């Protein structure tokens, strides 16, 4: 197969969302109307305004509407295959040079809110800041671009990315929703300027910020997509208490919250508001992963680790736990439903995913006995956050109790939790979190490689075979080969070595006022937040 055809397939596959999104209750299409101000609640305030620097969704929700991206998920159909589209480029590029060169043409006539034109030089300055940040500039997602050799602008309308090797992970990485296009002139003067200021070319213009209270935006009359956005403006209201955010939607102080609510809040709102409420649901590209500390006995023994994963009834948990917690899909290392993810039949071949839980647990008991650990006692180290951490933690403890283990739970606030996980490493088994934006399994599965290769694996192990498989997957241009490698990788990480145990993938539930139209759920709370296509149906 020709390489460009392969990459097109990868794009299609990487979109992934399509297959995975439940799409329950997706609103019907109707003629869009102009006008109105969308009020929505955001659980936290962003630390700064610089998307290149931050990692929290609390930045995306209020700030993304002010910026353009080079490419993005199609806001009308973010859940469909092949769903990347140009934002400020003219067409999705076809790779050349054996898949190692991508050339983007930038649309003419796009302007920043200060009136200056958006050119290829701005795009290059933006991506250089992200991929090759100068000293003293933080770029947390720099590692997503390991395949990039250079980025340059031969003229005002052309951007060229040269890769070290062909990689299917490149385009999804470019589409990362944090990659706001900044002005080169401003970055040249002060590279930190965007931390405290907003000046983009997105659908909305910055109106005001009230510290800790809200951020307001108004329609950009010069937005490059004619006739859009539909809204006159938006107001992102910060409200850290979940019960208040639910009440705000019930009392119509806000129309929507874009992160997600637990099932009981959805049910309460539905009961109170009836058809005034629309619910959109989707599988979520976030998962809790139980990680045994292999620097500590007996978790250095693969038999013990395999016993722990064998005891978990994921299929049953998916059915029952999903009624009270924001988890649902059973999956392996890759986002369920994605073409690189295991099918149910393939999953059932892995330890802990078998259809007969009794048989699995018998095997678990046998392994524990063989390892001399029938009466193993340990502590599950968890983050002190209810949804879904403590719910999943409590469920896991119950699963392990069923093979005779005595497990208790220690939950700590986020700060101490991550400090311990990354530095002190004082835990038996920790419930770690992997949550990504654009579905990009080739990179998302990096949480399983050796700890000297990534700072995001906390089990304290090195597995060179796994590392080789990871590199091979990322450097392969063949989807079939990638898929086969992913199965090997998954088998080794979750079964043969049982380095870590994937629990259940998250489930995103967005109940919103029915008058909010044109917004479509995605498998990530980081995506589709420019609000370009959102409109308010005053007739509702």
């Amino acid at each position, binding site marked *: 197969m020709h390489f460009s055809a392969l990459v097109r397939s990868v794009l299609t596959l990487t979109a992934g969302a399509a297959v995975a999104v439940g799409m329950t209750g997706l609103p019907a299409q109707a003629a869009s109307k102009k006008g109105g101000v969308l009020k929505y609640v955001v659980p936290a305030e962003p630390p700064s305004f610089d998307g290149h620097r931050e990692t929290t969704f609390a930045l995306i929700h209020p700030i993304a509407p002010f910026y353009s991206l080079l490419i993005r998920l199609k806001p009308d159909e973010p859940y469909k295959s092949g769903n990347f589209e140009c934002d400020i480029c003219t067409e999705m590029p076809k790779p050349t040079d054996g898949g190692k060169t991508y050339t983007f043409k930038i649309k003419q006539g796009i302007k920043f809110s200060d009136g200056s034109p958006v050119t290829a030089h701005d795009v290059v300055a933006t991506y250089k800041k992200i991929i090759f940040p100068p000293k003293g500039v933080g770029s*947390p997602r720099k590692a997503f671009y390991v395949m990039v050799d250079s980025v340059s602008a031969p003229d005002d309308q052309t951007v060229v990315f040269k890769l070290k090797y062909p990689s299917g992970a490149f385009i999804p990485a470019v589409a990362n929703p944090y990659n706001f296009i900044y002005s080169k002139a401003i970055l040249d003067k002060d590279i930190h300027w965007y931390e405290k200021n907003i000046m983009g070319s997105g659908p909305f213009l910055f109106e005001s910020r*009230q510290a800790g209270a809200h951020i307001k935006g108004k329609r950009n009359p010069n937005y490059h997509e004619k006739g859009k956005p539909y809204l006159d403006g938006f107001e992102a209201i910060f409200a850290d208490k979940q019960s208040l955010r639910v009440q705000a939607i019930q009392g119509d102080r806000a129309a929507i919250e874009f992160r997600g609510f637990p099932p009981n809040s959805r049910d309460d709102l539905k009961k109170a508001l009836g058809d005034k409420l629309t619910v959109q649901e989707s599988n979520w590209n976030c998962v809790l992963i139980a990680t045994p500390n292999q620097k500590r006995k007996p978790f250095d023994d693969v038999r013990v680790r395999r016993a722990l994963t064998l005891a978990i009834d994921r299929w049953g948990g998916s059915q029952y736990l999903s009624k009270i917690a924001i988890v649902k899909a059973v999956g392996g290392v890759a986002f369920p439903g994605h073409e690189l993810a295991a099918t149910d039949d393939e999953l059932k071949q892995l330890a802990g995913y078998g259809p007969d839980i009794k048989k699995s647990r018998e095997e678990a008991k046998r392994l524990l006995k063989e390892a001399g650990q029938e009466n193993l006692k340990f502590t599950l180290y968890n983050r002190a956050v209810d949804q879904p951490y403590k719910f999943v933690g409590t469920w896991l403890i119950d699963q392990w109790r069923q093979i005779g283990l005595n497990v208790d739970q220690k939950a700590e606030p986020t700060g101490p939790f991550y400090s311990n996980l990354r530095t002190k490493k004082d835990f038996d088994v920790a419930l770690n979190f992997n949550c*990504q934006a654009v579905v990009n399994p080739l990179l998302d599965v990096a949480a399983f490689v050796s700890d000297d290769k990534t700072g995001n694996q906390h089990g304290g192990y090195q597995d060179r075979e796994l590392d080789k498989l990871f590199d091979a997957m990322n450097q392969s241009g063949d989807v079939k080969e990638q898929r086969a490698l992913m199965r090997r990788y998954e088998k080794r990480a979750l079964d043969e070595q049982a380095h870590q145990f994937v629990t259940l993938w998250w489930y995103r539930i967005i109940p919103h006022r029915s008058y909010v139209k044109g917004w479509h759920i995605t498998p990530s709370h980081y995506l589709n937040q420019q609000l370009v296509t959102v409109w308010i149906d005053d007739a509702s």
Partner: protein
Amino acid sequence: MYQYILKRILLMIPTLFGAAVLVFFLLRLIPGDICELRLAGSGGFFDQAALNTCRAEIGINDPMIVQFGKFVWGFVTFDLGKSMWTNRPIVEEIGLRFELSLMIAILATITATIIAIPLGTISAIKQDTWIDYAVRGFSIAGIAMPSFWLGILIILGILFTTQWWSGVPWMPPIEYRPDWTSWDNIKNNLALLIWPALATGYRYSAVATRMTRSALLDVLREDYIRTARAKGLVERLIIVRHSLKNAMLPVVTVIGIEFAFLMGGLVVTEQVFNLNGLGRLFVQSVSNHDYTMTQALVMVVVSVFVFTNFVVDVLYAWLDPRIRYR
């Protein structure tokens, strides 16, 4: 009197310094740091270099003594510095929140005083009657009920009642508008502030009611009150002119302390009503490991306490001249 005031002012210095030492070192005992939280907290991958850059940028790698020196010098020169989380001036971050917390504290104090002094007085005068029992029951309920819980009940009550009444649920506004010049904003702000003022004012009034009652009962048993009655003075004058003023000494203390507490202590109540006040900022800054912001907030609240105590002491001296000569 001047000497007394000067002595009280000088006493503030060690109190403030002690608070500064405590907050600075206690904060640093909490494991983890702001950069880890900022980069790892959302579950995505991040580059180790970004973590090092973040730490260097906000100065948490500096020696402890340097950080402490900067903090104390900043406080002495009224420069609270920048928030580690937002990198914006702390004065700017605190400004609006201080205004909101002050407004809640004033409204709650007015609510509490309006309720507490008449009820406490009636309760004392009508001691051991059904009126006294009713007032005592009312105030015990107020003390027993946390104001944030009452706040939740108020919001839910409003939502359910309006839904039942009109079919359309209504809830109080969730944002404060600092511009009070338009009628819309005034309506919005009053509709926002009245409920937390009631929720906190009720608990506050309960404490003050009980204090008013017991202080007044003590005073009413004094010899000079008996003498006044023996002289045939009108009961209203005995209560208002001779008893109440003296009974106010402990009540003023309680009101002062509660007022200072409201400035930074409405941690949960502010979250319940989405009030962007100092209490909520305090919780956020502690959970974000924002050392500079937490330090500044603690010092602001301690300063409010110290100043309020100072005012109460001066009021004491004014109400009871014997105090200033001791």
